[in-house]
Protein backbone atom coordinates (compact mmCIF):
# COMPACT_ATOMS: atom_id res chain seq x y z
CA UNK A 1 0.00 0.00 0.00
CA UNK A 2 3.07 2.19 0.02
CA UNK A 3 4.48 4.10 -2.88
CA UNK A 4 8.15 4.87 -3.16
CA UNK A 5 8.87 8.51 -3.76
CA UNK A 6 12.26 9.81 -4.84
CA UNK A 7 13.38 13.09 -3.25
CA UNK A 8 16.28 15.14 -4.52
CA UNK A 9 18.10 18.05 -2.90
CA UNK A 10 18.48 20.95 -5.31
CA UNK A 11 20.23 24.22 -4.87
CA UNK A 12 18.36 27.15 -6.31
CA UNK A 13 20.54 27.43 -9.37
CA UNK A 14 19.38 27.57 -12.94
CA UNK A 15 19.49 24.33 -14.86
CA UNK A 16 19.42 21.94 -11.93
CA UNK A 17 15.88 20.72 -12.49
CA UNK A 18 16.60 20.34 -16.19
CA UNK A 19 19.58 18.17 -15.32
CA UNK A 20 17.50 15.85 -13.15
CA UNK A 21 14.92 15.36 -15.85
CA UNK A 22 17.64 14.78 -18.44
CA UNK A 23 19.25 12.05 -16.34
CA UNK A 24 15.88 10.37 -15.93
CA UNK A 25 15.00 10.74 -19.59
CA UNK A 26 18.36 9.35 -20.74
CA UNK A 27 17.73 6.31 -18.61
CA UNK A 28 14.23 5.76 -19.91
CA UNK A 29 12.52 6.64 -16.65
CA UNK A 30 9.10 8.18 -16.85
CA UNK A 31 7.87 10.76 -14.38
CA UNK A 32 4.33 10.16 -13.07
CA UNK A 33 4.05 13.06 -10.70
CA UNK A 34 6.33 15.80 -9.44
CA UNK A 35 6.31 18.50 -6.80
CA UNK A 36 8.87 20.99 -5.56
CA UNK A 37 9.11 22.52 -2.12
CA UNK A 38 11.44 25.46 -2.10
CA UNK A 39 13.11 27.91 0.24
CA UNK A 40 15.41 30.84 -0.46
CA UNK A 41 18.48 28.68 -0.88
CA UNK A 42 17.35 25.25 -1.84
CA UNK A 43 14.48 23.12 -3.05
CA UNK A 44 13.39 19.57 -2.56
CA UNK A 45 12.16 17.86 -5.67
CA UNK A 46 9.73 14.99 -5.09
CA UNK A 47 9.06 12.50 -7.81
CA UNK A 48 6.86 9.52 -8.46
CA UNK A 49 8.36 7.56 -11.34
CA UNK A 50 7.72 4.28 -13.08
CA UNK A 51 10.92 2.71 -11.73
CA UNK A 52 11.91 4.30 -8.41
CA UNK A 53 14.79 1.92 -7.64
CA UNK A 54 16.50 2.64 -10.91
CA UNK A 55 15.74 6.35 -10.64
CA UNK A 56 17.36 6.40 -7.21
CA UNK A 57 20.44 4.65 -8.54
CA UNK A 58 20.98 6.74 -11.66
CA UNK A 59 20.43 10.03 -9.83
CA UNK A 60 22.85 9.02 -7.14
CA UNK A 61 25.39 8.03 -9.75
CA UNK A 62 24.90 11.43 -11.36
CA UNK A 63 25.98 12.98 -8.07
CA UNK A 64 22.67 14.12 -6.62
CA UNK A 65 21.70 13.86 -2.98
CA UNK A 66 18.74 11.49 -3.23
CA UNK A 67 16.51 9.72 -0.80
CA UNK A 68 13.66 7.29 -1.18
CA UNK A 69 10.63 7.83 1.02
CA UNK A 70 7.45 5.85 1.43
CA UNK A 71 4.30 7.81 0.78
CA UNK A 72 0.68 6.86 0.19
CA UNK A 73 -1.33 7.56 -2.93
CA UNK A 74 -5.03 7.93 -2.32
CA UNK A 75 -7.78 8.02 -4.86
CA UNK A 76 -9.94 11.08 -4.35
CA UNK A 77 -13.28 11.43 -6.06
CA UNK A 78 -13.04 14.26 -8.55
CA UNK A 79 -15.88 16.37 -7.15
CA UNK A 80 -16.25 19.21 -4.64
CA UNK A 81 -15.45 18.01 -1.14
CA UNK A 82 -13.52 14.99 -2.35
CA UNK A 83 -10.23 15.94 -0.71
CA UNK A 84 -11.98 17.28 2.39
CA UNK A 85 -13.38 13.83 3.09
CA UNK A 86 -9.93 12.25 3.01
CA UNK A 87 -8.36 14.94 5.16
CA UNK A 88 -11.15 14.59 7.72
CA UNK A 89 -10.24 10.93 8.16
CA UNK A 90 -6.61 11.75 8.83
CA UNK A 91 -7.54 14.55 11.19
CA UNK A 92 -9.87 12.29 13.15
CA UNK A 93 -7.04 9.79 13.54
CA UNK A 94 -4.79 12.62 14.76
CA UNK A 95 -2.33 12.10 11.95
CA UNK A 96 -0.19 14.99 10.80
CA UNK A 97 0.47 15.53 7.15
CA UNK A 98 4.02 16.52 6.32
CA UNK A 99 3.10 17.47 2.77
CA UNK A 100 0.89 16.42 -0.06
CA UNK A 101 0.50 16.91 -3.78
CA UNK A 102 -1.99 15.76 -6.33
CA UNK A 103 -2.13 14.53 -9.89
CA UNK A 104 -4.79 13.34 -12.27
CA UNK A 105 -5.09 9.90 -13.72
CA UNK A 106 -5.48 9.59 -17.43
CA UNK A 107 -7.96 6.74 -17.45
CA UNK A 108 -10.39 7.38 -14.64
CA UNK A 109 -12.15 10.40 -13.32
CA UNK A 110 -10.48 10.21 -9.96
CA UNK A 111 -7.60 12.38 -8.80
CA UNK A 112 -4.64 10.92 -6.96
CA UNK A 113 -3.30 12.63 -3.88
CA UNK A 114 0.13 11.72 -2.54
CA UNK A 115 0.48 12.01 1.22
CA UNK A 116 3.58 12.02 3.36
CA UNK A 117 2.74 11.30 7.00
CA UNK A 118 4.90 10.27 9.91
CA UNK A 119 2.79 7.25 10.86
CA UNK A 120 2.27 5.62 7.54
CA UNK A 121 0.72 2.36 8.68
CA UNK A 122 -1.78 4.08 10.95
CA UNK A 123 -2.80 6.38 8.12
CA UNK A 124 -3.32 3.43 5.80
CA UNK A 125 -5.45 1.65 8.37
CA UNK A 126 -7.56 4.74 9.09
CA UNK A 127 -8.19 5.46 5.41
CA UNK A 128 -9.00 1.84 4.58
CA UNK A 129 -11.43 1.67 7.49
CA UNK A 130 -13.39 4.46 5.82
CA UNK A 131 -13.36 2.69 2.49
CA UNK A 132 -10.98 5.09 0.81
CA UNK A 133 -9.00 3.47 -1.97
CA UNK A 134 -5.28 3.42 -1.58
CA UNK A 135 -3.22 2.52 -4.58
CA UNK A 136 -0.35 0.09 -4.40
CA UNK A 137 3.09 1.03 -5.63
CA UNK A 138 2.76 -1.21 -8.69
CA UNK A 139 -0.51 0.42 -9.63
CA UNK A 140 0.97 3.89 -9.42
CA UNK A 141 4.21 3.07 -11.25
CA UNK A 142 2.23 1.52 -14.05
CA UNK A 143 -0.18 4.39 -14.50
Amino acid at each position, binding site marked *: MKVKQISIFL*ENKSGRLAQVTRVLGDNGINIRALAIADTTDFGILRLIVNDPDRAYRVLKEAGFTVSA*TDVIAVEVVDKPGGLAGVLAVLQEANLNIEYLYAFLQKASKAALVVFRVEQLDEAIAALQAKGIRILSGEEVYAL
Partner: protein
Amino acid sequence: MYWDRECETMSREQLEALQLERLKLTIERVYRNVPFYRQRFTEMGIKPSSIRSLEDLRRLPFTTKQDLRDNYPFGLFAVPMSDVVRVHASSGTTGKPTVVGYTQNDIDTWAELIARSLVCAGATKFDVVQNAYGYGLFTGGLGLHFGAERLGATVVPVSGGNTQRQLMLMQDFGTTILTCTPSYALYMAEEGQKMGLDFKKMPLKAGIFGAEPWSERMRRQLEEKLDLMALDIYGLSEIMGPGVAMECAEKQGMHIWEDHFIPEIIDPATGEVLPPREEGELVITTITKEAFPLIRYRTRDITRIDPEPCSCGRTHVRIKRITGRSDDMLIIRGVNVFPSQVESVLLEFGETEPHYLLVVDRKANLDQLEIWVEVAEHMFSDTVRKLEDLEHRLRERIESVLGISARVKLVEPNTIPRSEGKAKRVVDRRQI
Protein backbone atom coordinates in the same frame (compact mmCIF):
# COMPACT_ATOMS: atom_id res chain seq x y z
CA MET B 1 55.07 64.40 22.21
CA TYR B 2 55.91 61.25 24.14
CA TRP B 3 54.42 59.48 27.13
CA ASP B 4 57.75 58.10 28.36
CA ARG B 5 60.46 60.03 26.54
CA GLU B 6 63.32 58.11 28.11
CA CYS B 7 62.03 54.70 27.08
CA GLU B 8 60.65 55.72 23.72
CA THR B 9 63.72 57.52 22.46
CA MET B 10 66.64 55.68 24.06
CA SER B 11 69.56 54.94 21.78
CA ARG B 12 69.77 51.57 20.05
CA GLU B 13 72.79 50.65 22.19
CA GLN B 14 70.91 51.39 25.40
CA LEU B 15 67.81 49.63 24.13
CA GLU B 16 69.73 46.51 23.17
CA ALA B 17 71.59 46.44 26.47
CA LEU B 18 68.25 46.70 28.28
CA GLN B 19 66.78 43.96 26.08
CA LEU B 20 69.64 41.60 26.81
CA GLU B 21 69.42 42.17 30.54
CA ARG B 22 65.65 41.59 30.52
CA LEU B 23 65.92 38.61 28.18
CA LYS B 24 68.36 36.91 30.57
CA LEU B 25 66.00 37.49 33.48
CA THR B 26 63.07 36.12 31.49
CA ILE B 27 64.98 33.02 30.45
CA GLU B 28 65.96 32.42 34.04
CA ARG B 29 62.38 32.91 35.17
CA VAL B 30 60.85 30.48 32.71
CA TYR B 31 63.63 27.96 33.27
CA ARG B 32 62.95 28.07 36.98
CA ASN B 33 59.16 28.30 37.00
CA VAL B 34 57.76 26.73 33.82
CA PRO B 35 58.42 22.99 33.45
CA PHE B 36 57.52 23.17 29.76
CA TYR B 37 60.36 25.57 29.03
CA ARG B 38 62.84 23.85 31.34
CA GLN B 39 62.23 20.60 29.51
CA ARG B 40 62.47 22.20 26.07
CA PHE B 41 65.69 23.98 26.94
CA THR B 42 67.19 20.90 28.51
CA GLU B 43 66.43 18.85 25.41
CA MET B 44 68.35 21.40 23.37
CA GLY B 45 71.19 21.61 25.85
CA ILE B 46 70.43 25.20 26.76
CA LYS B 47 70.86 26.68 30.21
CA PRO B 48 70.01 30.26 31.22
CA SER B 49 73.76 30.90 31.24
CA SER B 50 73.89 30.00 27.53
CA ILE B 51 72.22 33.31 26.70
CA ARG B 52 75.06 35.83 26.48
CA SER B 53 73.96 38.05 23.60
CA LEU B 54 70.74 38.96 21.79
CA GLU B 55 71.99 36.78 18.94
CA ASP B 56 71.69 33.75 21.22
CA LEU B 57 67.93 34.21 21.15
CA ARG B 58 67.73 32.39 17.85
CA ARG B 59 69.12 29.25 19.45
CA LEU B 60 65.96 28.96 21.55
CA PRO B 61 62.96 26.89 20.45
CA PHE B 62 59.76 28.48 19.20
CA THR B 63 56.55 28.49 21.20
CA THR B 64 53.36 27.86 19.23
CA LYS B 65 49.67 28.22 19.83
CA GLN B 66 49.53 24.44 20.07
CA ASP B 67 51.94 24.60 23.03
CA LEU B 68 49.50 27.00 24.68
CA ARG B 69 46.61 24.61 24.06
CA ASP B 70 48.58 21.64 25.30
CA ASN B 71 49.17 23.46 28.57
CA TYR B 72 45.58 24.67 28.97
CA PRO B 73 44.63 26.49 31.08
CA PHE B 74 47.45 27.65 33.34
CA GLY B 75 50.36 25.32 32.52
CA LEU B 76 52.63 28.04 31.12
CA PHE B 77 52.10 30.51 33.93
CA ALA B 78 55.37 31.45 35.60
CA VAL B 79 53.91 32.70 38.89
CA PRO B 80 51.57 31.13 41.46
CA MET B 81 47.88 31.84 40.85
CA SER B 82 47.85 34.01 43.96
CA ASP B 83 49.94 36.52 41.99
CA VAL B 84 47.68 36.40 38.93
CA VAL B 85 45.21 39.27 39.11
CA ARG B 86 43.50 38.80 35.77
CA VAL B 87 43.11 36.31 32.96
CA HIS B 88 42.06 36.86 29.36
CA ALA B 89 41.41 34.29 26.69
CA SER B 90 41.20 34.03 22.95
CA SER B 91 38.90 31.71 21.07
CA GLY B 92 40.19 28.19 20.57
CA THR B 93 39.86 25.84 17.66
CA THR B 94 38.17 23.03 19.48
CA GLY B 95 36.24 25.01 22.03
CA LYS B 96 39.20 25.37 24.40
CA PRO B 97 40.51 28.92 24.37
CA THR B 98 44.10 29.94 24.94
CA VAL B 99 44.32 31.48 28.37
CA VAL B 100 46.73 34.21 29.38
CA GLY B 101 47.39 35.68 32.82
CA TYR B 102 48.68 38.94 34.25
CA THR B 103 50.23 39.97 37.53
CA GLN B 104 49.54 43.45 38.83
CA ASN B 105 52.90 44.47 37.34
CA ASP B 106 51.88 43.06 33.97
CA ILE B 107 48.64 45.04 34.08
CA ASP B 108 50.63 48.17 34.94
CA THR B 109 53.06 47.59 32.08
CA TRP B 110 50.16 47.06 29.72
CA ALA B 111 48.51 50.29 30.86
CA GLU B 112 51.82 52.11 30.35
CA LEU B 113 52.19 50.77 26.84
CA ILE B 114 48.63 51.69 25.94
CA ALA B 115 49.20 55.17 27.35
CA ARG B 116 52.31 55.41 25.14
CA SER B 117 50.28 54.22 22.20
CA LEU B 118 47.51 56.73 22.84
CA VAL B 119 50.06 59.54 22.97
CA CYS B 120 51.34 58.36 19.58
CA ALA B 121 47.90 59.35 18.33
CA GLY B 122 48.20 62.73 20.01
CA ALA B 123 46.05 61.90 23.03
CA THR B 124 46.34 63.78 26.32
CA LYS B 125 44.48 63.75 29.62
CA PHE B 126 42.07 66.27 28.14
CA ASP B 127 40.75 63.74 25.65
CA VAL B 128 37.53 61.78 25.72
CA VAL B 129 38.25 58.22 24.62
CA GLN B 130 35.25 56.31 23.39
CA ASN B 131 36.31 52.71 23.73
CA ALA B 132 34.21 50.56 21.42
CA TYR B 133 36.41 47.47 21.63
CA GLY B 134 34.62 44.55 23.23
CA TYR B 135 34.98 44.19 26.98
CA GLY B 136 35.35 40.75 28.48
CA LEU B 137 37.71 37.87 27.88
CA PHE B 138 38.83 39.61 24.68
CA THR B 139 41.80 41.86 25.52
CA GLY B 140 40.77 44.84 23.39
CA GLY B 141 38.26 46.53 25.67
CA LEU B 142 39.94 46.27 29.06
CA GLY B 143 43.41 46.75 27.58
CA LEU B 144 42.57 50.11 26.03
CA HIS B 145 40.50 51.05 29.04
CA PHE B 146 43.22 50.84 31.67
CA GLY B 147 45.74 52.55 29.38
CA ALA B 148 43.42 55.47 28.69
CA GLU B 149 42.85 55.85 32.43
CA ARG B 150 46.61 55.71 33.00
CA LEU B 151 46.96 58.57 30.56
CA GLY B 152 44.35 60.45 32.55
CA ALA B 153 41.92 60.73 29.67
CA THR B 154 38.18 60.41 30.17
CA VAL B 155 37.16 56.92 29.19
CA VAL B 156 33.73 56.05 27.84
CA PRO B 157 33.65 52.25 28.28
CA VAL B 158 30.85 51.70 25.81
CA SER B 159 32.17 48.37 24.38
CA GLY B 160 31.12 47.18 20.92
CA GLY B 161 27.72 47.31 19.26
CA ASN B 162 24.61 49.43 19.66
CA THR B 163 25.67 51.88 16.99
CA GLN B 164 22.86 54.39 17.51
CA ARG B 165 23.88 54.81 21.11
CA GLN B 166 27.57 55.01 20.17
CA LEU B 167 26.80 57.89 17.86
CA MET B 168 24.63 59.64 20.41
CA LEU B 169 27.35 59.41 23.06
CA MET B 170 29.93 60.56 20.56
CA GLN B 171 27.98 63.77 20.04
CA ASP B 172 26.83 64.35 23.59
CA PHE B 173 30.15 63.59 25.29
CA GLY B 174 32.32 65.28 22.69
CA THR B 175 34.39 62.16 21.96
CA THR B 176 37.84 63.06 20.63
CA ILE B 177 39.40 59.60 20.29
CA LEU B 178 37.63 56.54 18.99
CA THR B 179 39.02 53.08 19.63
CA CYS B 180 37.50 50.07 17.85
CA THR B 181 38.02 47.77 14.88
CA PRO B 182 38.44 49.66 11.59
CA SER B 183 35.45 47.95 10.01
CA TYR B 184 33.22 48.94 12.89
CA ALA B 185 34.47 52.52 12.64
CA LEU B 186 33.52 52.58 8.97
CA TYR B 187 30.13 51.17 9.82
CA MET B 188 29.64 53.89 12.41
CA ALA B 189 30.68 56.50 9.86
CA GLU B 190 28.05 55.32 7.44
CA GLU B 191 25.30 54.98 10.02
CA GLY B 192 26.18 58.48 11.20
CA GLN B 193 25.93 59.80 7.66
CA LYS B 194 22.49 58.25 7.31
CA MET B 195 21.42 60.00 10.50
CA GLY B 196 22.69 63.26 9.07
CA LEU B 197 25.66 63.61 11.43
CA ASP B 198 28.38 65.94 10.23
CA PHE B 199 31.61 64.46 11.52
CA LYS B 200 33.50 67.56 10.41
CA LYS B 201 31.68 69.52 13.09
CA MET B 202 32.46 66.95 15.76
CA PRO B 203 35.64 67.09 17.84
CA LEU B 204 36.89 63.59 16.86
CA LYS B 205 40.61 63.85 16.19
CA ALA B 206 42.04 60.35 16.14
CA GLY B 207 40.98 56.77 15.78
CA ILE B 208 42.99 53.84 17.08
CA PHE B 209 41.97 50.92 14.96
CA GLY B 210 43.15 47.36 15.24
CA ALA B 211 42.26 43.72 15.92
CA GLU B 212 41.78 43.00 12.22
CA PRO B 213 43.68 43.58 8.99
CA TRP B 214 43.04 46.82 7.14
CA SER B 215 44.59 48.84 4.39
CA GLU B 216 45.64 52.29 3.23
CA ARG B 217 42.43 52.43 1.24
CA MET B 218 40.45 51.95 4.44
CA ARG B 219 42.60 54.52 6.18
CA ARG B 220 41.67 57.11 3.53
CA GLN B 221 38.00 56.23 3.85
CA LEU B 222 38.06 56.43 7.62
CA GLU B 223 39.94 59.72 7.66
CA GLU B 224 37.64 61.24 5.10
CA LYS B 225 34.37 60.02 6.53
CA LEU B 226 35.09 60.52 10.22
CA ASP B 227 37.38 63.52 9.80
CA LEU B 228 40.09 62.15 12.06
CA MET B 229 43.58 60.67 11.93
CA ALA B 230 43.30 56.89 11.65
CA LEU B 231 46.15 54.90 13.18
CA ASP B 232 46.90 51.21 13.35
CA ILE B 233 47.48 49.38 16.62
CA TYR B 234 48.80 45.83 16.96
CA GLY B 235 48.60 43.25 19.64
CA LEU B 236 47.58 39.73 20.44
CA SER B 237 46.32 38.28 23.67
CA GLU B 238 49.13 35.74 23.86
CA ILE B 239 51.73 38.51 23.99
CA MET B 240 49.69 41.04 25.98
CA GLY B 241 46.75 42.42 24.02
CA PRO B 242 46.56 45.67 22.07
CA GLY B 243 49.51 48.01 22.43
CA VAL B 244 52.33 45.61 21.54
CA ALA B 245 52.99 48.01 18.65
CA MET B 246 51.44 51.31 17.65
CA GLU B 247 51.64 53.63 14.70
CA CYS B 248 52.72 57.20 15.23
CA ALA B 249 51.47 60.21 13.30
CA GLU B 250 54.08 59.53 10.59
CA LYS B 251 51.93 56.55 9.54
CA GLN B 252 54.94 54.52 8.45
CA GLY B 253 54.34 51.32 10.37
CA MET B 254 53.86 50.48 14.04
CA HIS B 255 56.57 51.00 16.64
CA ILE B 256 56.93 47.77 18.50
CA TRP B 257 57.77 48.56 22.11
CA GLU B 258 61.16 46.93 22.16
CA ASP B 259 61.88 47.53 25.81
CA HIS B 260 59.21 44.87 26.47
CA PHE B 261 59.15 42.70 23.35
CA ILE B 262 61.86 41.40 21.04
CA PRO B 263 60.57 40.94 17.48
CA GLU B 264 62.06 38.61 14.88
CA ILE B 265 60.92 37.82 11.37
CA ILE B 266 61.26 34.22 10.27
CA ASP B 267 60.62 32.20 7.17
CA PRO B 268 57.41 30.40 8.20
CA ALA B 269 58.42 27.27 6.31
CA THR B 270 61.96 26.84 7.61
CA GLY B 271 61.94 28.84 10.84
CA GLU B 272 65.08 30.63 9.71
CA VAL B 273 65.50 34.24 10.88
CA LEU B 274 65.25 36.71 8.01
CA PRO B 275 67.16 39.97 7.72
CA PRO B 276 65.44 43.32 8.33
CA ARG B 277 62.96 44.50 5.66
CA GLU B 278 62.23 40.98 4.48
CA GLU B 279 58.69 39.75 4.78
CA GLY B 280 57.93 36.75 6.93
CA GLU B 281 56.25 35.59 10.11
CA LEU B 282 56.53 37.77 13.18
CA VAL B 283 57.97 36.02 16.23
CA ILE B 284 57.89 37.80 19.59
CA THR B 285 59.71 37.17 22.85
CA THR B 286 58.34 38.95 25.90
CA ILE B 287 61.06 40.27 28.21
CA THR B 288 59.16 41.85 31.09
CA LYS B 289 56.06 39.76 31.53
CA GLU B 290 55.78 37.99 34.86
CA ALA B 291 52.68 35.81 34.77
CA PHE B 292 52.83 34.61 31.19
CA PRO B 293 56.22 35.06 29.53
CA LEU B 294 56.56 33.67 26.04
CA ILE B 295 59.78 32.74 24.33
CA ARG B 296 59.86 33.16 20.56
CA TYR B 297 56.12 32.97 20.14
CA ARG B 298 55.08 32.37 16.55
CA THR B 299 52.34 34.92 15.96
CA ARG B 300 51.52 33.56 12.46
CA ASP B 301 51.14 37.18 11.36
CA ILE B 302 53.01 38.07 8.19
CA THR B 303 54.83 41.41 8.19
CA ARG B 304 58.32 42.90 7.98
CA ILE B 305 60.49 45.02 10.19
CA ASP B 306 61.54 48.52 9.23
CA PRO B 307 64.62 49.49 11.25
CA GLU B 308 64.98 52.98 9.71
CA PRO B 309 64.91 55.75 12.30
CA CYS B 310 61.46 57.35 12.40
CA SER B 311 61.11 61.10 12.13
CA CYS B 312 58.85 61.06 15.20
CA GLY B 313 62.02 60.49 17.24
CA ARG B 314 61.02 57.12 18.64
CA THR B 315 63.86 54.66 18.31
CA HIS B 316 61.81 51.46 18.47
CA VAL B 317 61.67 49.60 15.16
CA ARG B 318 58.46 49.49 13.21
CA ILE B 319 56.52 46.53 11.91
CA LYS B 320 54.56 47.04 8.73
CA ARG B 321 50.87 46.37 8.32
CA ILE B 322 49.99 42.73 8.80
CA THR B 323 49.53 41.44 5.27
CA GLY B 324 48.35 37.95 6.02
CA ARG B 325 48.69 34.83 8.07
CA SER B 326 51.00 31.88 7.83
CA ASP B 327 48.14 29.62 8.93
CA ASP B 328 44.52 29.48 7.82
CA MET B 329 43.14 31.73 10.55
CA LEU B 330 40.63 34.34 9.50
CA ILE B 331 39.83 37.49 11.39
CA ILE B 332 36.15 38.22 11.07
CA ARG B 333 34.72 41.23 12.85
CA GLY B 334 37.78 41.18 15.07
CA VAL B 335 37.27 37.55 16.05
CA ASN B 336 39.79 34.85 15.23
CA VAL B 337 38.21 32.06 13.25
CA PHE B 338 39.84 28.84 12.17
CA PRO B 339 38.18 26.65 9.53
CA SER B 340 38.91 23.67 11.79
CA GLN B 341 36.42 25.09 14.30
CA VAL B 342 33.69 24.83 11.69
CA GLU B 343 34.90 21.36 10.80
CA SER B 344 34.61 20.20 14.39
CA VAL B 345 30.98 21.35 14.49
CA LEU B 346 30.17 19.59 11.25
CA LEU B 347 31.75 16.41 12.54
CA GLU B 348 29.40 16.53 15.51
CA PHE B 349 26.47 16.55 13.12
CA GLY B 350 27.45 13.80 10.74
CA GLU B 351 29.54 10.71 10.83
CA THR B 352 31.49 11.33 7.64
CA GLU B 353 34.06 13.96 6.77
CA PRO B 354 32.17 17.05 5.75
CA HIS B 355 32.86 19.22 2.77
CA TYR B 356 32.48 22.85 3.58
CA LEU B 357 33.65 26.31 2.62
CA LEU B 358 33.88 29.53 4.55
CA VAL B 359 32.93 32.44 2.35
CA VAL B 360 33.81 35.82 3.80
CA ASP B 361 32.50 39.04 2.40
CA ARG B 362 32.38 42.59 3.55
CA LYS B 363 28.99 44.23 3.08
CA ALA B 364 28.29 47.75 4.30
CA ASN B 365 31.74 47.56 5.93
CA LEU B 366 30.76 44.64 8.08
CA ASP B 367 32.28 41.22 7.66
CA GLN B 368 29.80 38.54 6.71
CA LEU B 369 30.54 34.90 7.11
CA GLU B 370 28.68 32.32 5.10
CA ILE B 371 29.34 28.66 5.64
CA TRP B 372 28.54 26.40 2.75
CA VAL B 373 27.90 22.83 3.75
CA GLU B 374 27.43 20.03 1.30
CA VAL B 375 24.34 18.04 2.15
CA ALA B 376 25.39 14.45 2.52
CA GLU B 377 22.78 11.77 2.08
CA HIS B 378 22.50 11.04 5.78
CA MET B 379 21.75 14.69 6.47
CA PHE B 380 19.13 14.94 3.78
CA SER B 381 15.46 14.80 4.51
CA ASP B 382 12.62 15.16 2.07
CA THR B 383 10.90 17.69 4.29
CA VAL B 384 11.84 21.36 4.27
CA ARG B 385 11.17 21.63 7.97
CA LYS B 386 13.90 19.14 8.83
CA LEU B 387 16.46 20.73 6.54
CA GLU B 388 15.70 24.16 7.93
CA ASP B 389 15.99 22.73 11.39
CA LEU B 390 19.41 21.33 10.45
CA GLU B 391 20.48 24.75 9.17
CA HIS B 392 19.24 26.33 12.35
CA ARG B 393 21.04 23.90 14.63
CA LEU B 394 24.26 24.23 12.64
CA ARG B 395 24.02 28.02 12.82
CA GLU B 396 23.52 28.02 16.57
CA ARG B 397 26.30 25.56 17.24
CA ILE B 398 28.72 27.41 14.96
CA GLU B 399 27.86 30.70 16.63
CA SER B 400 28.54 29.27 20.06
CA VAL B 401 31.88 27.82 18.95
CA LEU B 402 33.12 30.75 16.84
CA GLY B 403 31.62 33.53 18.92
CA ILE B 404 30.22 35.23 15.83
CA SER B 405 27.12 34.64 13.78
CA ALA B 406 27.33 33.03 10.39
CA ARG B 407 24.85 32.17 7.69
CA VAL B 408 24.67 28.48 6.93
CA LYS B 409 23.94 27.58 3.35
CA LEU B 410 23.25 24.00 2.36
CA VAL B 411 24.64 23.13 -1.03
CA GLU B 412 24.58 20.12 -3.31
CA PRO B 413 27.30 17.49 -3.05
CA ASN B 414 30.43 17.98 -5.12
CA THR B 415 29.72 21.66 -5.66
CA ILE B 416 32.47 22.83 -3.35
CA PRO B 417 35.67 22.72 -5.36
CA ARG B 418 38.07 19.95 -4.37
CA SER B 419 41.67 20.81 -4.71
CA GLU B 420 44.59 18.48 -4.88
CA GLY B 421 46.39 18.15 -1.62
CA LYS B 422 45.23 20.59 1.02
CA ALA B 423 41.53 21.34 0.78
CA LYS B 424 40.58 24.91 0.14
CA ARG B 425 38.37 25.88 3.04
CA VAL B 426 38.17 29.62 2.68
CA VAL B 427 37.12 32.09 0.04
CA ASP B 428 37.86 35.59 1.27
CA ARG B 429 36.12 38.10 -0.94
CA ARG B 430 36.75 41.07 1.30
CA GLN B 431 38.33 43.99 -0.42
CA ILE B 432 40.06 45.62 2.47
